[in-house]
């Protein structure tokens, strides 16, 4: 039970210190006007871009590992996948900074942040995809192939839809995870006080805003860090709790 004290204390502090600053202006104005609207927008842009890059690659890798995973190559890939899931997030930040910020784009860019975050997203999605596809009974695959359907067709039209619930759950949890990542985007999108200005200029994001605000001496700005935390924690917890409730519902269905 001791372990829950931090959780409760965090929630308590975030709510009591964050709620007073929340209002429409705070949620929609940009940094110069004392709001976090630009950071919320930035977070959603980052999440969107990252999902666009990371989810297809992650799911397809997971499909390979689950459906064709009985060879040495796949075993190696699975092991590497497991190992990089626990990569220190700041390292992918450095890498994306060097490749994208210095190399490809030449300035801080939301794109660099999305690359860094997809390095984190891909292994997580691949892992959960593999696990949920393995739960699909083999008899389903055999039944489909017995009807003369190609294996690739079986996988795309039969196995993936059967595992859909697990795929959605895993993907949403992975998104919740990257929504709170700070270190990689600190090095790649830098932070700013303005709304999105294009793919070759710095942007802001909620976790970044929390970090930068918390370092300011002014109590007002620190209060805005708590407000941003409240918004971020609401997004993350809503994703988590929503997913859990949804998957619990599915569990009941499958017991029928």
């Amino acid at each position, binding site marked *: 039970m*001791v*372990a*829950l004290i*931090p*959780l409760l*204390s*965090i929630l308590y*502090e*975030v709510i009591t*210190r964050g709620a007073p600053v929340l209002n429409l202006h705070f949620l929609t104005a940009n940094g110069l006007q004392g709001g976090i609207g630009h950071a919320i927008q930035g977070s959603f842009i980052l999440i969107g871009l990252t999902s666009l890059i990371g989810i297809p690659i*992650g799911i*397809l*890798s997971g*499909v*390979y*590992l689950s*459906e*064709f995973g009985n060879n040495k190559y*796949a075993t190696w*890939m699975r092991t590497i996948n*497991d*190992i*990089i899931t*626990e*990569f*220190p*997030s*700041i*390292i992918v930040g*450095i*890498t994306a900074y*060097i*490749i994208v910020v210095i190399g490809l784009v030449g300035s801080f860019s939301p794109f660099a942040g999305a690359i860094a975050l997809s*390095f984190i997203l*891909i*292994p997580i999605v*691949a892992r959960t995809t593999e696990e949920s596809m393995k739960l699909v009974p083999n008899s389903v695959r055999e039944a489909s192939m017995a009807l003369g359907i*190609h*294996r*690739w067709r079986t996988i795309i039209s039969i196995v993936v839809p059967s595992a859909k619930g697990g795929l959605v759950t895993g993907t949403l949890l992975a998104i*919740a*995870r990257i*929504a*709170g990542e*700070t*270190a990689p985007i600190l*090095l790649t999108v830098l932070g700013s006080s303005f709304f999105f200005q294009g793919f070759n200029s710095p942007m802001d994001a909620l*976790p970044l805003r*929390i*970090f930068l605000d*918390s370092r300011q001496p002014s109590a007002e700005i*620190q209060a805005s*860090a*708590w407000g941003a*935390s409240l918004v971020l*924690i609401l997004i*993350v*917890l809503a994703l*988590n709790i929503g997913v*859990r409730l949804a998957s619990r519902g599915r569990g009941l269905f499958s017991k029928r």
Partner: protein
Amino acid sequence: MRKLNGDNTFKVILGIIAASAAIILIVNAYVLISGSTTAIGKFGFDFFAGKSWNPVTQTFGVLPYVLGTLITAGIALLIGVPLSLGIAIFLVEMSPKAVRVPFSYLVELLAAVPSVIYGLWGLFVLRFWVLDFVEKPLHAYLGWIPIFSGAPFGLDFFTAGIILSIMIIPTVASVTREVISAVPSTIREAAYSIGATKWEVIRHWVLSYGRSGIFGAVILGLGRAVGETMAVTMVIGNAIGPNAMPTSLFQPGQTLPSLIANGFFDSQTALESAAYIGAGLVLLIISLIINILAHVMVTRVLKVKGGAVE
């Protein structure tokens, strides 16, 4: 043969995509190695063993930060592992189902809280608890022991270690839980049948059977603690230069990730940036070793489970 072509193409395409994990690993390693050659080439072994990180004289050595990383991670393990073991044992062996479900759910929520929020909480809340209830008394009564010397301030190795210990609980507890549930029930039944009490069964049979897996879980927690950036950066006090060499737990310090997060953009010369990238490389190597070790130990135990079920 023609019919097979669709399948083979599909398999090959997926196989190439599945290499993304390896590509990510290789790209990261390559970029860090090539980016840091100037620094490591210039200082050689001193880069790893040197104590000074001085932008003025342009000498860079990562030793204080490696030590800082290990110290904070060590504190995290000392506090976090017993708690996590307790949680895992409670969840598997003792709790009624009505408690188990919400409780394990709450522990998982602990993992969902973004690290920057841990940092914020640490900076404005935990710091003062630690300062008032732990550090001041320890300093007052045990200040003559070197590790408790130094004026307690609240932003130091100790606070960072405590934050980390909270953050590794979900990782360690959930893996340990899996490992303990993987212990075949025949072993428990055999132990009970020769008259062992519940405590003895857990202590002598369950824990020793799952020893390797639990050790793996601990190392996994270590990996998390070592790589954690934001929460640590916000509470460790960010000492730089000669002050960063750890002498006391109650002194501001610096870990490898916090060093990079703080200083990367302040670097004035190419050599200095290369040194920061080198620090990243050292972190990458440490974390790779830790994660490979953990992976080997955890899969060994879970494989046994697979065998037993079949």
